[in-house]
């Protein structure tokens, strides 16, 4: 039918050309920057605190990070159980307080967020001399305080040793102090408190001792100084926080870390939690307080992308605001926008590769749900739900129930398995498995039913094979849907979905041999070729 062919080709061309036109327009006229589309490293940090209550009131405090020009904090979430969370901000810090009354038994509190930070480095002008005076608001950063014995004679002694001729430029002064603390004072792996004098006397210290000695010497030299506490972010579970110092030079607070030898610079994996010589956690007594930081590295679209998109017109940012006004976050929108990519992956696996899976789009849906559990736990959760539910179906076969009530029982079982897995995983600290609740429950019930039918009619081998194939497609869909580049692209250019439609139209007309069919018909092909 020529009409149909003409319509197909026109539509196909339009679906390719229109988005490409829009993208060019955005890039050329609206000045979207491709560099912004390259994803950046970020860290997901989960602060986990546990206590044992004995019927008393409990309060706990800690510091939460703030966004500043160097670090960008997003996606903050928390679960506090019985505790009430209050967050108070002062100009420097954000203090979180959890309170609960008459707490019994073990309790846990989580606070998590995503950090995207930049590496910074300062250049200190060489001839710069130490100012004689500072604005009054800097006075606190020049005073002695507990642990920072600015006026102790030993501090003078230390300075005499490092800088005999005291009237040198700031850059020279800081270099000597930094080198002394980094090279002469041994690093000690010690988690307790060390004051400035003790650090000097021992000739060794951990981060807080070195930091206090640095602050004390700087203040003695009339350079405002403060200690900074935070985390060195690395994937894994850690309890160790870190401390470094900032010196006020020429209107900037310049960072120094004399444990890891960062002179006037801070790497991108340093998270600033708070300023000032305070402890990270304060809490009621006798509650067996435990804490840890669970840190996961991941790639995310650059935060500058989100901001930049907001500046221009004809712009999805306005669209995103519409979604946000009804409670759909950009994050959720991103997941939704990636589902068509997952669907394309499953289409390719079915029609081009020829792999049989459970359900057409089940792999794409599981992959998008596995975004919160991680691929491994998503796959484990999927197999667990399917196998347990299929076993339950077996049992019901024996009971001989009619179809619809049986399916309702399977659905209920899936719900219970998922909730049970969530409860157990929280109990055993398998945080990722707790997100199974995002799995598409009804589809899983149908899949379990199909698994059981496969198993009954074609044997466990066949059912297991289709399950493995499904897992392969889930992994592929997951990899594509988690692609930070594609995520950034589709957030910036949602019109790419039209290109996906065009690709599917093309695949919809593709009559070529599936890869699996090459295998299936290999002998026939050679026999036909010999004719």
């Amino acid at each position, binding site marked *: 039918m020529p009409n149909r062919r003409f319509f197909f080709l026109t539509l196909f061309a339009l679906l390719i050309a229109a988005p490409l036109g829009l993208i060019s327009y955005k890039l050329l006229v609206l000045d979207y920057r491709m560099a912004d589309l390259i994803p950046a490293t970020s860290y997901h940090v989960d602060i986990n605190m546990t206590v044992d209550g004995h019927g008393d009131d409990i309060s706990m405090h800690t510091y939460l990070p703030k966004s500043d020009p160097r670090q960008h904090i997003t996606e903050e979430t928390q679960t506090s159980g019985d505790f009430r969370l209050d967050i108070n901000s002062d100009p420097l810090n954000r203090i979180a307080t959890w309170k609960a009354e008459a707490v019994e038994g073990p309790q846990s509190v989580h606070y998590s967020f995503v950090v995207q930070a930049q590496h910074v480095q300062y250049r200190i002008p060489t001839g710069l001399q130490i100012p004689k005076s500072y604005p009054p608001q800097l006075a606190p950063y020049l005073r002695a305080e507990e642990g920072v014995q600015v006026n102790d004679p030993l501090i003078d002694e230390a300075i005499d040793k490092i800088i005999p001729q005291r009237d040198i430029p700031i850059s020279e002064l800081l270099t000597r102090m930094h080198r002394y603390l980094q090279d002469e004072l041994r690093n000690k792996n010690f988690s307790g408190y060390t004051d400035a004098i003790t650090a000097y006397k021992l000739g060794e210290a951990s981060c807080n001792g070195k930091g206090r000695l640095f602050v004390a010497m700087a203040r003695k030299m009339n350079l405002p100084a403060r200690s900074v506490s935070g985390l060195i972010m690395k994937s894994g579970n850690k309890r160790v926080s870190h401390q470094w110092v900032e010196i006020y030079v020429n209107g900037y607070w310049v960072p120094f870390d004399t444990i890891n030898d960062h002179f006037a610079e801070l790497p991108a994996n340093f998270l600033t939690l708070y300023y000032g010589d305070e402890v990270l956690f304060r809490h009621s007594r006798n509650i067996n307080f435990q804490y840890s930081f669970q840190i996961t590295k991941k790639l995310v679209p650059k935060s500058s992308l989100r901001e930049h998109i907001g500046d221009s017109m004809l712009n999805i940012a306005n669209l995103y605001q519409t979604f946000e006004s009804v409670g759909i976050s950009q994050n959720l929108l991103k997941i939704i926008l990636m589902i068509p990519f997952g669907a394309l992956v499953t289409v390719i696996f079915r*029609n081009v590769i*020829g792999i049989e899976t459970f359900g057409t789009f089940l792999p794409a849906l599981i992959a998008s749900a596995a975004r919160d559990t991680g691929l491994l736990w998503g796959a484990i959760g999927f197999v667990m739900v399917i196998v347990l539910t299929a076993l339950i179906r077996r049992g019901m076969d024996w009971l*001989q129930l*009619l*179809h*619809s009530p049986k*399916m309702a029982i399977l659905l209920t079982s899936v719900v219970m398995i998922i909730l049970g897995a969530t409860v157990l995983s929280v109990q055993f600290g398998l945080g990722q498995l707790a997100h199974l609740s995002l799995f598409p429950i009804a589809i899983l019930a149908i899949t379990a039913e199909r698994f059981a*039918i496969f198993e009954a*009619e*074609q044997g466990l081998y066949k059912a297991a094979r289709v399950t493995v194939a499904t897992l392969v497609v889930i992994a592929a869909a997951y990899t594509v849907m988690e692609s930070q580049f594609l995520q950034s692209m589709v957030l910036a250019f949602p019109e790419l979905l039209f290109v996906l439609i065009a690709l599917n139209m093309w695949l*919809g*007309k*593709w*009559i*070529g*041999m*599936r890869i699996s*069919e*090459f295998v*299936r*018909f290999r*002998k*026939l*092909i*050679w*026999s*036909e*070729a*010999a*004719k």
Partner: protein
Amino acid sequence: MSWSAWKANWQNFRRGSAHVLTMNQRNLHFIYPNNARKHFPIADNKLLTKQILGASGVPVPETYQSYSSFFELRSLEQDLAPCHEFVIKPAQGSGGGGIVVISEKTEDGWRSVSGHHYTAADLRRHIADIIFGVYSFGLSDHAIIEARVDQHTELNELSPFGLTDVRIIVCHHQPVLSMLRVPTKASDGKANLHQGALGIGIDIETGCGIHAIHHGEALTHHPDTHIDLLGRNLPFWDEILRISCQAAQAVPLKYLGIDLAIANDGPLILEINVRPGIEIQNANMLGMRPLLKQIAAPDQQLETVRNSL
């Protein structure tokens, strides 16, 4: 191997592949244009198939009863009382699910070919399952009770483990390829290739077995009985082709897999399939595409089997 040999091999392989009907092409070029979705029920609902075929004089197994609602089952025991041999099947089942073949009556019930004993209550429950759609992807369904087909005696040696059936692909009312599906011990009496039945490619002109496969592998002898599978002529072959074409003309579907059983007094059509599989090419060691091309391009049409009948 040298580069030119690789290239020649690859070209050969491409040429061979071009003769094989793929799943994508079957769907796009044969099923969608030839079988309108609205006519699918004619094939998918076996009760409807039998009514339509029966009305146009195509032989089908006699329907004793059909049940579509639970309360109709009150008369089940009376309905079945005179029956000794019969088949219970879901009208919209697939892959042979839910089919029970009863071969004899006992004191307090019936016995199936697989030796299973059924009381009236067992059958009632099974039929209720069928009606509630257990075997039909959750749709409510009809249960059919029909005459059991007694296999032609000539076929007993070839197929001692169950009823063998003939599959014929018919495109635009012309037979294209056919195969005989023979149950084995492993397939548990079922004529389903996935479950281990044999597929014997049948020459469309002569009705003679030309090639055979088991689990996708070529073979010449029955894996259980070791008798020769090839070179046998099927009884009633001309009649089989005739009623297949008659059946194809009775329905508004132009690309069909027609399944027949052969009884002593002639072939009967068991069901028709609007999405016939492509494994039949392996059973015949013959690619379907050139054959379908001839049919689809009428001016180049060669003398076909049907015209010669």
